[in-house]
């Protein structure tokens, strides 16, 4: 089988993107609801509250997963908007590359913030 081909053929990557768009959406919804419940039970009003919350490993991992989900979701969403409305291929390619770069950079930025 050629490189980049799956059993379903190389033109079926859209199915995977469809799944990723929905899984990330569901994860983000759960994260936001649970975060709101946690914040309403014990609000973060002082720096000590924030330190207690933000130093927990569970919080750090779920927050990073949230941010990565957000970036992946945003990337796929913007991609379908561009594919629908931007027809000149050079401009479309340029836009997609710029957005991909920005998403990647934002992900690295968030990672550095959370782990340091």
């Amino acid at each position, binding site marked *: 089988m050629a490189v980049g081909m799956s059993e379903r053929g190389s033109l079926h990557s859209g199915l995977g993107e469809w799944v990723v768009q929905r899984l990330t959406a*569901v994860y983000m919804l759960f994260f936001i609801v649970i975060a709101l419940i946690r914040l309403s039970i014990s609000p973060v009003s002082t720096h000590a509250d924030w330190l207690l919350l933000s130093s927990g490993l569970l919080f750090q991992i779920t927050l990073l997963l949230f941010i990565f989900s957000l970036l992946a979701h945003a990337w796929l969403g913007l991609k379908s908007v561009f594919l629908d409305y931007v027809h000149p291929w050079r401009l479309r390619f340029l836009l997609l590359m710029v957005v991909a770069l920005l998403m990647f950079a934002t992900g690295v930025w*968030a990672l550095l913030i*959370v782990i340091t």
Partner: protein
Amino acid sequence: MANMKKAGLRPVFLNLLQIRLPHGGVLSIVHRVTGVLLVLAIPLFIYLLQLLNSGTDGFSQALALLHGLPGRIFLSLTVWVLIQHSLSGIRHLMMDMGISYDKNIARKTADTVFALGLLMVIVTGVAIWL
């Protein structure tokens, strides 16, 4: 080949002022527009996270930003857009599961999403501004 030539000659009607979209169609556009707006808020929120994580000074700076007028305007706009996007997103997920394929039900769920969105705007608006 003959078919392709014919396809190019199809009548095209794209007068945006005269096209009457079904309610679900309007909601679909709203989902896209709110999605693009939310992308713009991402860097601001990561910046906020950075402030929160940079010691006592940064933390109080972040709180001051959130309580100031620009912060409140930004926060309420983002929350409203996020709620609208989430509600129409949940409707999309419902449709993926086969709920509301029926035209009349689809119209009702679209209207419900608009009504719920408006209600949540009022609730969160009160929470942020009062």
